[in-house]
Each structure stands twice: as C-alpha cells, then as structure tokens.
C-alpha cells in the first residue's frame, strides 16, 4: 500500500474547496490569536544519525547488564536460559507486526500460536481454560481478583505477606477506585498463618496466594484453598511457571483462577518488561474470564481452523459491560513463552527447575555456614530464599557489586523491618563456581 502524504496539489485542492488561500490563513481563522504560539518550539535541533547512535550507545553503556556479572537477581524476574532460536522465530514479520486477529480468515497463523500458548498454560497450571494472556504477572493477578469480585459480589480480597510487593501495588491500584478492600495477612515466618486467615476470610471474594511466595517459600496451599472455599471465597494463585515442573500445579491443589508471570519462559529480563501474564481458570468460570480466548473450530468443509471465541464478553462487543476494559493480550511475548516451552519440552523445563532448586539449596547450605549469616525464614523453598546479614543489605549489595556480583534485591525497601536481608535467586545458569564466588564474597563483606 502506498502511503504518500499530502502533496502541495492535494493541499491546494482542499484549501480551494473551503475557500481559504493558505494553511496559515485557515489556522488564523479558527484559533484565536491569543492561543497561538509565537516563534519556534523550544526543542534541540536534529542530530545526524551517527551522532544520535553514539548518544544512545553512551546512555546504554551506563546500564550494567546481568550477563556481565554473576546475577542472583530474582524477586519475580529470573535469569533463565533463553534458547537462541526464540528471537529468530518471534522476529519473523508475520508474527512481529501482527495485531489483534479479529479477522480469523487472514490470521490463522497468529490464532494458532495463541491457541497453542493457551494449551500449554492449561497443561502447566492444571487448569481447564486459559485466555490469550495479559500484560504481565501483576496485572493478571489483579484481573483475577476483580474477576472473583464480579463472581461473588463481595467487596474484599485477602492477600498474604508473601505477595510480591509490586504485585500488591498493582492490585491496590485496581481495587481502590472500585472500593474493593484489600486485607493483608501478617503471616508467620514469611508464610500464611492459617488461623489468621480463618479470621480474615469472612466475606472475602478471594484469597490470593503466591506459591512459591515472594520470599521463595512454599505456602500451605491446599489448606489455604480449603479455608477459602469453606468461606465461599475463590482462590486466586500467582505462581512461578518454571517451578510447576516440580511442584503440584494450582489446578490440583484447589486454585480457581491461576495466574503467573511468564517472564521465566524465555523472555529477557530487559529492565522490567515487556513480559507476559498467564491467566487460566476452572471451566465454570470461563464466561466471566477477562481477555480474549482462541478456540479450535471446524469450517464448513470440516477442516480445523482457529477463531476468537466467547467474544460477547469482550470490549469490542460488550463495551462498558465487558469482563474487563483494562486488559489486552501480549501476543508476541506469549509467542516467546510458547516457543520456549516447545523448544525445551517437559524434560528441559524439569531440568531447568531441578537445577535451579539444587543450586539454591547448595547456596543456602553454604551461606548458613558463614558466621553471622542465617536464613530469614525457616522451611521449604524453591530456587529463592532470603538471608539475614550482620550488616545492612544495601551496603552488602553495593560491596558485592564491586566484586562483579548482583546479590539479589534487598528486602529493606519493601519490608523496613528487615534492613539486613537480601533475597537471592538461583537459576540453572549459575555454575558451582558462581555460587562459591557469592559465598566467598559474602564472607569478606560481613567478616
């Protein structure tokens, strides 16, 4: 398609049609003089392309990519292996530029990838139906909470102490304008305290559970689900997808709505995004699930095809009464996750999870042998845990970075009661030498 802008001849023709001599004359007739800006805009002059490139490179060089240090960053975003084929596949122009596949007859390829993504999300989470994805794990969780509010008509949700604090902020942003009360469990030793939950669950639309939680700990999810269900509340879970290769999936321990941050599935950490939110539900909740859904269907010749389905729930048909008007899917990043899962397969995912688990447990064992260092919480964890140091977490982090080590986020900024704590995550990419380097580094820093 030719996309040439207006020519002088086009402009003259339009001006003649309305009877004005020039564009300036037109503007002076319709915008009162006192509102018109005089002189030029106060912006710098344009740069030559190679000067601009140099400028951007200098700015980019101020960043310190995780790949250039030994990274133990986690807290919701993880440095897992990303097969090189992913960027090639998602970079194909058919995928890279495609938008919402409303017109099924010209979007079969895009629709098929979304359908396969949904299938993998269901298999990972053990749920019945998935949507085409959300912006990220935080918004998926918040949509889950709003969905439970819609379902029950109740105006409160219960959240655990171990919910990612950034997720909590997003959840509060979604809940505050709609007058949904967010009740926070204090918990015990970083986990949900079942007795406290029993007291706060009354009248709640949902109990939210993150498993493993923000501190890396495994929650008593089946017990939590039972308490929630006995009180008529839905269970909305947020999980770490890689962990599902080892842990019981949410669909099997009683989650009604399962969400996850899809970043660990082949998506670069990239300074916070773009990521992809996974969202899946039990069958009886499908019609109130937000977002778009792709289904497999038969055409009139009995051939398989893919279509958007249940569209009457959605924004382009139900308008202000849609299940959600603040969501869309993340097709390209969902394709990234789909490609990752297709390439590594169930065995690869299990190896990644197992090696992450083993590395983290080796590291925890070594670190707790260092004088003055202990785990902040007891109990089981997956690939992430918090340690308490005899010095400030921020100070330790700074000094370890001088040794080329990113020693996790500090907990103090979110949890002021733990100023000396670091949250450490281990993935399959960390070798034994990396883990030993952190142990030696911490020995020196606290010694």
């Amino acid at each position, binding site marked *: 398609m030719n996309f040439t802008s207006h020519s002088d001849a086009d402009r003259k023709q339009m001006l003649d049609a309305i009877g004005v001599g020039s564009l300036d004359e037109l503007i002076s007739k319709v915008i009162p003089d006192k509102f018109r800006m005089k002189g030029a805009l106060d912006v710098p002059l344009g740069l030559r392309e190679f000067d601009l490139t140099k400028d951007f490179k200098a700015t980019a060089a101020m960043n310190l990519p995780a790949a250039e240090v030994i990274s133990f960053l986690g807290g919701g975003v993880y440095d897992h292996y990303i097969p090189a084929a992913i960027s090639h596949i998602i970079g194909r122009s058919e995928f890279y530029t495609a938008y919402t596949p409303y017109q099924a007859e010209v979007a079969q390829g895009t629709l098929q990838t979304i359908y396969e993504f949904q299938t993998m999300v269901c298999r990972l989470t053990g749920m019945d139906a998935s949507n085409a994805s959300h912006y990220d794990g935080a918004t998926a969780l918040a949509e889950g909470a709003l969905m439970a509010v819609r379902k029950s008509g109740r105006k409160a949700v219960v959240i655990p102490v171990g919910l990612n604090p950034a997720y909590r902020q997003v959840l509060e942003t979604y809940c505050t304008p709609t007058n949904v009360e967010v009740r926070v469990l204090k918990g015990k030793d970083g986990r949900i305290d079942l007795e406290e939950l029993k007291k706060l669950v009354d009248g709640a639309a949902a109990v939210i559970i993150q498993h493993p939680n923000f501190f890396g700990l495994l929650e008593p999810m089946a017990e939590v689900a039972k308490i929630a269900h006995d009180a008529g509340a839905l269970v909305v879970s947020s999980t770490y997808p890689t962990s599902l290769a080892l842990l019981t999936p949410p669909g099997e321990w009683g989650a009604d709505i399962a969400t996850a941050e899809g970043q660990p599935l082949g998506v670069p950490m990239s300074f916070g995004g773009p990521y992809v939110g996974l969202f899946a539900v039990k069958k009886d909740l499908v019609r109130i699930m937000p977002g778009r859904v792709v289904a497999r269907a038969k055409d009139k010749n009995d051939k398989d095809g893919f279509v958007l389905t249940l569209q009457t729930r959605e924004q382009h*048909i139900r308008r202000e*009464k849609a299940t959600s008007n603040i969501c869309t899917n993340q097709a390209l990043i969902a394709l990234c996750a789909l490609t990752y899962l297709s390439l590594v397969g169930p065995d690869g995912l299990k190896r990644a999870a197992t090696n992450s688990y083993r590395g983290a447990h080796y590291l925890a064992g070594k670190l707790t042998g260092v004088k003055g260092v202990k785990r902040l919480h007891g109990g089981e964890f997956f690939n992430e845990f918090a340690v308490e140091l005899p010095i400030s977490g921020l100070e330790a982090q700074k000094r370890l970075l001088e040794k080329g080590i990113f020693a996790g986020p500090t907990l103090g900024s979110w949890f002021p009661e733990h100023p000396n704590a670091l949250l450490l995550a281990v993935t399959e990419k960390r070798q034994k030498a990396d883990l030993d380097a952190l142990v030696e580094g911490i020995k020196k820093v606290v010694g």
Partner: protein
Amino acid sequence: MNIPNDLLYTRDHEWLRVSGGEGSMGITDYAQGELGDIVFLDLPDVGTKVSQGKSFGSIEAVKAAADLNAPVSGEILAVNPALEHAPETINQSPYGDGWIVKIKLSTPADTANLLDPRSYAAWVEQSHGESH
C-alpha cells in the same frame, strides 16, 4: 411480528405474564430476532431480589450480548432449567418454552409502569425506525 395480546411489555423488550402475584418473563419475539442465535444466559439463583428496570442477568447471542432487566420488583421464584443446555429455545418459542424466570411480585403496582400490547407495538415501530 408476534406481540401476544395477553402480556405486558417493557421498553427493553421483555414481556411479563402475571398470574396471582407471580409473573413469568422472557424476551419478545422482536428482541430474539434482533439478537440472533442465542447461545448463553447468565441468570441469578432462585431467591435473588430484583428491582424493576434493573439488570439481573444477561443474554448472549453469537455476536451481541444484552442485559436482562426486571420488568417488576420482587424475588426470583424459578429459573427455566431448559435454557442451560438449550438457550436456542428462546429463538424458537420466545413466549412459550423460552420463558426465562418467574418472579414473585413485591409491588404489584409495578405493572402500571409496563406497556400494553398496543403501546409496545408502537414502541417497537418507533425504535425499529430509529435503528434502520
């Protein structure tokens, strides 16, 4: 267009058949024709309180969805069980087997706000003209 003489109507194209303090309701022949193939209904539980003119559920066709509004205030006495597996019954028999819920009227005077068949026919004529 079929507008039975023995029913009362709303401007939202619901009908009501009142008998001894109870009313059964559905959507009109005109409404089912405008919606097209009906595929799903979201209906309240028995015992739910409804208010005249307020939405108590929704009805979905293949390419449109609409609210179901209560023609009168009261309490849901029954929900048509056939619709869960055969929502198309509404297309086939909007005034018969395609009834949607039964309501126990809390305020019988509510019916004074409804349209008689002649007024409803005029209303349809008018809204039909506007939308075409």
